């Protein structure tokens, strides 16, 4: 069982930087991203329309590149979590976690007995189609699987301490847009209510030893949240990065074209 260097770094107090992928599920994508120095790709299934076949393909392309494939599943359900791990995801993010029971379900779905209730198949995609000692594989899977729960609703906030106290998951992620939406301050990331919620999540992460994670839509945002203690950051989304670079280039062209004519 290959190890997950991102989880190792994070649990040792280090940081890990990568990006979200919502669109570019193409043969070259993992290597294109790897060549820039990204450590992980968070493949999104919640909002992208991607299915498990496409995920399996992308995860296979990460094999051998040393880039860590993580998947955000659509919802806290066993079949999403266990199947995405079976095809080789090294970590699972679950959106809209609202209760300790949901957090427990995620942990149960991700881990083999006795730590959880995940059904087992080895010599498959997750362990690179090689045979080997089953207890070692189970221990390897347990060690490498990075579980990330998103706190992004007012209900999740109400139950934050109970959720954070659940053993067996690694990271609390914020969903900044949804959090603001569910708090009724839509997109206002300076609103006192939103900021108080972030402070609570940071405190819960510290208290229960959970890695703090977030997406970062801008440099300023990344700076702020790094300073708050967030150590796992997905900076940008595949297509928004492309759009930012393209519109910058096109604006450059238009500017001197305007000046020259």
């Amino acid at each position, binding site marked *: 069982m290959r190890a997950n260097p991102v989880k190792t770094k994070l649990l040792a107090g280090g940081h890990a930087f990568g990006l979200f992928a919502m669109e570019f599920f193409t043969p070259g994508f993992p290597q294109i991203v790897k060549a820039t120095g990204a450590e992980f790709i968070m493949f999104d299934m919640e909002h992208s329309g991607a299915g498990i076949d496409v995920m399996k393909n992308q995860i296979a392309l990460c094999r051998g590149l040393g880039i860590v494939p993580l998947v955000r599943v659509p919802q806290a359900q066993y079949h999403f979590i266990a199947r995405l791990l079976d095809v080789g995801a090294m970590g699972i993010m679950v959106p809209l976690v609202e209760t300790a029971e949901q957090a427990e379900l995620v942990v149960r779905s991700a881990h083999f007995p006795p730590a959880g209730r995940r059904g087992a198949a080895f010599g498959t995609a997750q362990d690179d189609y090689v045979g080997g000692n089953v207890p070692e594989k189970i221990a390897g899977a347990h060690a490498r699987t990075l579980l990330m729960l998103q706190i992004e609703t007012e209900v999740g906030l109400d139950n934050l301490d109970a959720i954070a106290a659940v053993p067996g998951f690694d990271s609390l992620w914020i969903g900044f847009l949804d959090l603001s939406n569910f708090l009724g301050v839509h997109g206002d990331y300076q609103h006192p209510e939103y900021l108080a919620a972030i402070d609570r999540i940071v405190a819960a992460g510290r208290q229960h030893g959970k890695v703090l994670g977030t997406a970062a839509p801008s440099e300023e945002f990344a*700076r702020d949240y790094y300073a708050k203690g967030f150590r796992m950051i997905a900076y940008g989304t595949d297509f928004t990065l*492309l759009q930012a670079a393209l519109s910058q280039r096109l604006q450059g062209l238009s500017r001197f074209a305007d000046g020259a004519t």
Partner: protein
Amino acid sequence: MRDNPVKLKLKRGEAVFGTMAFEFFVPGLPQMVKAAGAEFILFDMEHSGLGFETLKELVAACRGIGLVPMVRVPSAQYQFIARALDIGAMGIMVPMVASAEEAEFIVSCTRYPPHGRRGAAFGFAHDDYESGDVAEKMYLANERVIVMPLIETKEGIDDIDRIAAVPGVDVLWLGHFDLTNFLGIPAQFKHAKYAKAIDRLCAAAKKHGKVLACMSGSDDWSREYWEKGFRLFAAGVDGHLLQNALRQSLATLNGLDSAKPKRKAGKR
């Protein structure tokens, strides 16, 4: 038959800016580059492994969003050019065009008789599955296509005045890297041989009223070629644009880390 706003602008002498795609052949690509301000997207079949089935989906995704789909075919063959047009491409780029005869052949592949030798099928992808008067469709199809030979070999430069004179050739697209390669001066864009070739290209375009085009790898590059008279630019390539933005992002993040000097030096 929809018209081709890029061709209309070029005919009026206006500049047109778009982008090129080698990798991210996904359903959302046309709309996301349109939203970023691109006027056309040039799909590469020469180096990307892109086939016609995927291309047809991408061209379909350009329909209705006002983004002009163009294609670089792998080589100057009828079957590539006519098929790309049949699935809705509005512009055809052909690599390594080396002679006026080759340029004439390319134009003939893009035109219905008597102006060329393109076989006809209507009520399909390229005319948006509409019925209508066939003669009118053929006229409009001949009018809307943009033909862009890539000038990127010594032979192409040697015959540039005759290539530029070919009726139906709209754009002379500079393949800057290959041109240096075929001149024996790889990537030496300041070399006198390269500069002389560019001068010949620009003079031929001016003389025959053809549009000059190239990739825009940077603002400095674009400015230089704008001043030479280039008016059609593809601003970057999908994968590289993403990498540029991501590298910049990661540099920022790693900067956050080094701002707090807590890493131990040496060892490992």
